[in-house]
């Protein structure tokens, strides 16, 4: 599968998955497939969601790091004292 775009229409994903477009719309409605809703009838499916649907083993891995003892106080010390930070 050669994916070269960042977003795909439901019809394009249906063609790749060899299913009817209504199946893709049902996936979106049920939350099985993520899509950005641009208007009442227009969806754009991010390439990551397409890969997750068709080739999930290819997905790059996200990560979460928890550092309970990290020192954040110095970043906000002195508030609210008028300390300005860059916009």
């Amino acid at each position: 599968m050669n994916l070269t775009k960042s977003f795909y229409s439901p019809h394009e994903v249906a063609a790749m998955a060899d299913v009817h477009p209504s199946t893709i719309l049902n996936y979106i409605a049920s939350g099985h497939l993520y899509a950005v809703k641009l208007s009442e009838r227009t969806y754009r499916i991010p390439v990551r969601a397409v890969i997750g649907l068709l080739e999930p083993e290819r997905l790059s891995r996200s990560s979460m790091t928890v550092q309970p003892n990290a020192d954040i106080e110095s970043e906000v010390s002195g508030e609210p004292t008028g300390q300005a930070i860059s916009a």
Partner: protein
Amino acid sequence: MRPLSSQAYNQRRDDLYSRLDRLGRVLVQDLGSNSATRKLVVDLFVPGQGDPLPDEVHFRYQEWWRLSPLGWQRIRYDYDYFDLVRGARRGYHLHPLEGGAAAVPHAVCVLASGVGTGRHYAAHEIDLLAAHEEFEAQYASGRPIDPRGLRAID
């Protein structure tokens, strides 16, 4: 934004991770939960798949929270949308501005030409997910970042 218990904070963090992971590769850092101030850093790269699909967008969301008798209270945020292709940036921030004492919610918009650098625009306080949904819709629509509709406050 109302204060959150530690459990609610962690639930929100985990929900954000799951929500954003559907769009791109997300890196979440939860820092300082054992102290009175903690920070949430979310970096979302889209598409985030690497070669042959270079990243087009970097969403960077940072929040600073302070422990109060009511729970964790958000005291500052920087929600930024970087268009890596066009070199533009759009954001919603909450922090004191130059010469001020109180945190001021505002928007920023910097174009590739440099227009907008150092400018602040009026904005209401906003939640991370609301900011993200606006940025995400703009990115998905293909519309470039621009300052239309923003009112300068300095």
